């Protein structure tokens, strides 16, 4: 959270066309936008009415006129509400106008995934949907990436969606030491090297995968790949990893059907040299997160399921 806040400060300072809009961004209700109103004033930090559709396309219009909006959404499912404005408007203008305009907007979803106790409408992880539609989509798993990717997202000439995993918001705060490096979009990161099996882990599961890899280190030498940008995906990095290890497990906190996990497994099956069937660890098909905590956690993938999947794949 602190990392994202620093990235916003840095970009707003670096480029005066960058501005921020969203609900309660002035007071920084989510924590991500704290201090920006004080530093940059109400001309560049716009508290919006509860009109997600209009302010999303407002961003598109401002972008057409040369601005670089960063739009914060308080809840991940608000992406559903503005699907039309992102996917059918902002995304399409470049091609539809024959390259006459670019739409450099950043959609900042400042807490995606289960918040454990916020129930059905506040716990989704809709990044696979935007990736399917072709929106550049970022899901950081480490604080330094959150910083570096958010800066890249803002600088990018196309619409970019940035999903900060809810599960990491607290942790990020503490851990981020402040190394200020830009991380380019579309480049994966091998966070742990290994020879026996590749785990692709996204967002909050990067840390989980590292722990599981460590805990299984007596049994296998596991490589962990963090794609960081989920679309466009860094297939070259993954190809190299899987062609080396021959085995693949993906952990991804979106629904099974047509999720990011499916894409990674499918591409590996089509193009990479697998020696064993790959596996995914994900949410069930069509998941709706129930309120009761034990039910909520039962549906979100975790270390135990990942361990089981790795063991089964190693067999």
């Amino acid at each position, binding site marked *: 959270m602190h990392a994202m806040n620093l990235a916003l400060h840095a970009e707003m300072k670096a480029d005066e066309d960058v501005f921020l809009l969203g609900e309660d961004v002035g007071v920084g209700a989510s924590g991500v936008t704290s201090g920006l109103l004080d530093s940059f004033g109400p001309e560049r930090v716009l508290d919006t009415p509860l009109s997600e559709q209009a302010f999303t396309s407002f961003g598109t219009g401002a972008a057409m006129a040369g601005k670089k909006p960063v739009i914060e959404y308080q809840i991940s499912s608000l992406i559903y509400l503005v699907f039309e404005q992102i996917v059918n408007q902002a995304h399409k203008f470049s091609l539809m106008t024959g390259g006459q305009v670019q739409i450099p907007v950043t959609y900042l979803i400042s807490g995606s995934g289960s918040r454990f106790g916020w129930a059905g409408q506040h716990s989704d992880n809709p990044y696979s949907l935007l990736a399917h539609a072709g929106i550049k989509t970022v899901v950081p798993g480490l604080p330094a990436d959150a910083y570096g990717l958010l800066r890249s997202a803002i600088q990018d000439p196309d619409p970019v969606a940035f999903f900060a995993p809810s599960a990491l918001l607290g942790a990020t705060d503490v851990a981020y030491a402040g190394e200020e490096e830009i991380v380019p979009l579309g480049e994966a990161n091998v966070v742990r090297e290994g020879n026996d099996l590749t785990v692709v882990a996204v967002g909050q599961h990067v840390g989980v995968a590292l722990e599981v890899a460590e805990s299984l280190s007596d049994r296998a030498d596991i490589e962990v790949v963090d794609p960081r940008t989920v679309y466009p995906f860094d297939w070259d990095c993954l190809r190299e990893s899987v062609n080396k290890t021959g085995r693949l497990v993906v952990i991804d906190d979106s629904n099974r*059907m047509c999720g990011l996990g499916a894409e990674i497994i499918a591409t590996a099956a089509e193009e990479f040299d697998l020696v064993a069937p790959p596996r995914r660890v994900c949410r069930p098909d069509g998941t709706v997160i129930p309120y009761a*905590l034990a039910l909520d956690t039962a549906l979100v993938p975790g270390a135990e399921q990942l361990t089981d999947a790795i063991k089964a794949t190693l067999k």
Partner: protein
Amino acid sequence: MSRERQRDLYRSMKLIREFEERCLAMAIDGEINGGIHPYIGQEAVAVGICSNLTDRDFITSTHRGHGHVLAKGADPRRLLAELLGTLEGFNKGRGGSMHAADMKLGILGANGIVGAGGAIASGAAWAAKARGNSEVVVSFFGDGAMSQGVLLEAFNLASIWSLPVLFVCENNMYATSLKLESGLAGGAARRAEGFGMVARTVDGMDVEAVAGAAAELIEGCRAGRGPAFLECRTYRFFGHHSVLELLGVEFRDRDEVAQWRERDPIPLLGARLGADVVAEIDAAVKETIDEAVEFATNAASPEPEDALMYLYAGTAAVRPGVIL
């Protein structure tokens, strides 16, 4: 208004107040997952409106829904059981604060998405009308919701089809940190009139005034005169959400909060009833809530393996998150 009716209104408001105070404490203590949006301060609205409804009428509610649900007659024991994520809750622990619903009482659910209820209300109203019934639907929402496209679309739909919906805007002057005047151009009632509806504004701290205004408008709905709009000017006494309360974050001016607390709807009506009556009701309400806490804290929790129960009403083979 009859003294008996006044007592009923008082009891209902006090029940909500007591329930919410207990919940707020439990949320801050971490006993209620995710926390709550407390209704405290706005009781006169839910109670005044719902006092004109029967069990067969419908309501749609909001993220700040406990007051509406209780005012519509829902059992506080089962509402609290829901907030504790237990099987005794209305939603069997699947919904929690933002989705509490008792369909038997026509409560079509609280809703976590601001502005979502109005169109659902219109559909239910149309269905009732199509059956030739005289039920009405009340759709509650805040001042912030007045800028949501789907709600504005619903105003038009209800109006053009002359549906029996009472749209109730609880104008507490803030949407989280956003001030009314920074969010809503033109005024709530005036905006509603632009959709061809009868619109009125009432003091939302005076339960008798709310009840009176609602009675008239609901009568119009029942008589087939189409939808109506009621803006209730009110105020919440606590932070937007229990998490903010816990963190001690308040976006509003402390003096303003203090001033509005002077207009607390409960003592306002209590004064008309007299101290004895009030004391008697207060004691009974406290007992009811004590019982509810007792009931809810002893209720059983659902099992993790049932996490996807009710995902579909019909059949559908759902694959799990990991297949070994």
